[in-house]
């Protein structure tokens, strides 16, 4: 009982601290960010609960009827009330496909960002804190990769890994390969930002105080330095999420991302692109709108976070 009360008090305390914080104040004062957050939240809910929320299941071939293919949205002539945003060339409901497609976009986006943050922050931390030849090797590697456009790196990794995999696994593993490709293509940015911040923190006296008592370097990096450099990394990760979603869409648009049987926003845009000039604009228009809205919302939040966490702008 007492345990319960104290944990309740802790939650209360935490809630109070969140509502009381500068960050929350700046959040509530900024309508654009609130709208962006709501949009992102709606996307996440729609994607997570797509199997229950979506009016149709685009993965169920039994429910598809080719006679219903290329139905226009409901407010146009020939529109059907059960297909709000119309159907694509296979007779799949666009709205449902967008919901399932955002799933892939968000999963790939989040996982790829997590991957590159992990690799980038880890290598940046080591390079910045330990310095010496390790620093040179890691940072020159990052420089070399930064010289090549990220999308090309992702394309190359995607291609190479896909070839290395046995054919029967290719479709199954496609999404993981995509995460790896996008994650690897983006780590140098995190490594550079992390290293820069670590170089500043490393020379502060609280690090020296830990060194004097012989704290293990790994512990100093993770418990002392890391919490103090997470601000800029967090901001980059938010903006990086939007970038990763775009990269995924681009790769899928180019036809090297997820297989055509798994609808992602990029695949839908590519399929619809073929019908654009024959008048079925809705097949590509709605996925495009969804993609732009999601990326814009995430980007605006990242921009706000950067300003909100910047003490000079407070």
């Amino acid at each position, binding site marked *: 009982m007492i345990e319960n009360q104290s944990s309740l008090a802790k939650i209360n305390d935490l809630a109070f601290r969140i509502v009381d914080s500068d960050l929350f104040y700046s959040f509530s004062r900024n309508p654009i960010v609130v709208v962006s957050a709501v949009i992102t939240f709606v996307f996440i809910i729609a994607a997570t609960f797509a199997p229950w929320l979506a009016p149709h299941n685009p993965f169920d071939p039994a429910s598809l009827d080719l006679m219903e293919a290329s139905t226009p949205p409901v407010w146009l002539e020939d529109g059907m009330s059960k297909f709000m945003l119309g159907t694509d060339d296979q007779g799949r409901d666009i709205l449902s496909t967008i919901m399932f497609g955002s799933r892939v976009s968000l999963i790939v986006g989040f996982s790829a960002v997590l991957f590159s943050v992990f690799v980038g922050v880890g290598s940046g931390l080591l390079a910045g804190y330990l310095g010496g030849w390790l620093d040179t090797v890691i940072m020159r590697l990052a420089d070399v990769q930064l010289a090549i456009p990220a999308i090309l790196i992702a394309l190359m990794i995607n291609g190479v890994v896909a070839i290395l995999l046995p054919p029967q696994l290719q479709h199954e593993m496609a999404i993981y390969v995509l995460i790896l490709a996008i994650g690897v293509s983006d780590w140098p940015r995190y490594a550079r930002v992390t290293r820069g911040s670590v170089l500043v923190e490393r020379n502060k*006296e*609280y690090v*020296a*105080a830990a060194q*004097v*008592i012989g704290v293990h370097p790994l512990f100093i990096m993770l418990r*002392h330095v890391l919490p103090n450099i997470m601000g800029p990394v967090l901001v980059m990760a938010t903006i990086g999420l939007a970038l990763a979603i775009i990269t995924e869409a681009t790769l899928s648009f180019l036809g090297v991302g997820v297989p055509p049987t798994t609808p992602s926003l990029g695949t839908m845009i590519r399929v619809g692109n073929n019908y654009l000039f024959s008048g079925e604009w809705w097949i590509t228009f709605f996925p495009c709108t969804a993609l732009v809205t999601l990326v814009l919302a995430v980007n605006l939040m990242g921009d706000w976070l950067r300003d909100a966490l910047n003490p000079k702008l407070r």
Partner: protein
Amino acid sequence: MNDDIKQGFEVKPLLEVRDLTKYFDVSKPWLTRILEKQPKQILKAVDGLSFEIGKGETFSLVGESGCGKSTIAKLVVGLQRPSNGEILFDGQDLNKAITSKDSNRIRRRWQMIFQDPFASLNPRWRVNDIISEPIRVFKLAKSKSEINDRVDKLLTQVGLSPADGNKFPHEFSGGQRQRISIARALSSEPEFLVCDEPTSALDVSVQAQILNLMKDLQRRLGLTYLFISHNLAVVYHVSDRIGVMYLGRLCEVATASDLFKNPQHPYTQLLLNTIPDMEMTGIKRDPVHGEVPNPIDPPSGCAFHPRCPLANDRCRKETPQLQKNAGSLIACHAVEEKRNV
């Protein structure tokens, strides 16, 4: 080290520094250096320094900025390795001891207090965690409640309240932060504290509080201090003995009262003349001539000769060594030859 500069401790000194040198390579990157045909550039931050600190004593190092004071602090606590020379802590070679497996046993015997109270406390840690870190690292307490008890006691000891432990460092003023810093340093129950300009970032009124706290703690816990400062008034207040440094070398080592009453080295005299004094109001002072030379390219012979009013040819050629002179140790040819009287 020759017997001349032994200060004649009856008991073994706690810290012995012998011919300590620390060189930093500040040359440009290798390729640039080759292309521009420049030699390697070595900065001699500490150049052959020897001193001893007895148990329970406060030994101060003073000097202008850039003379190597802070480097010595870092060398003495093992944050940096010396290029040459020895540091003996309680008779053991310090740099061998801290790399050995059993290093925790000796490491806990010294601690450091830093200059900037705004940088020396991790802003993301609660004060409790900051103070208890040495206790946890050295495993000095068995249980969580024992750690908490010790932290509460330490906070009270430095004049804060145990309730302050739950706060973050940014909720405190500079003086209070320095108290937290001292509490952290004391938490491993050290014998020896290295204080690198502990008061220079504080207001004058707060400086006095911190210095009195440090003196009080020294009396109660029998601490030994290596005190580093550029502020002569502070040094006079806290020190038993004082070493005056110039460009990585000691030029005079004397007890505090001797040094302030009867400074012998021309550089010490120059330093003491710069202290503002009520009696000097309106009287024209001798302006200090010259600047501290570049330690990458120090002057030949005695490093002080370009600014010294007593310099002669010998000073320009021969580096003076510390020698006993009327109870103090002086490194000056002019004093040795009695040219100063």
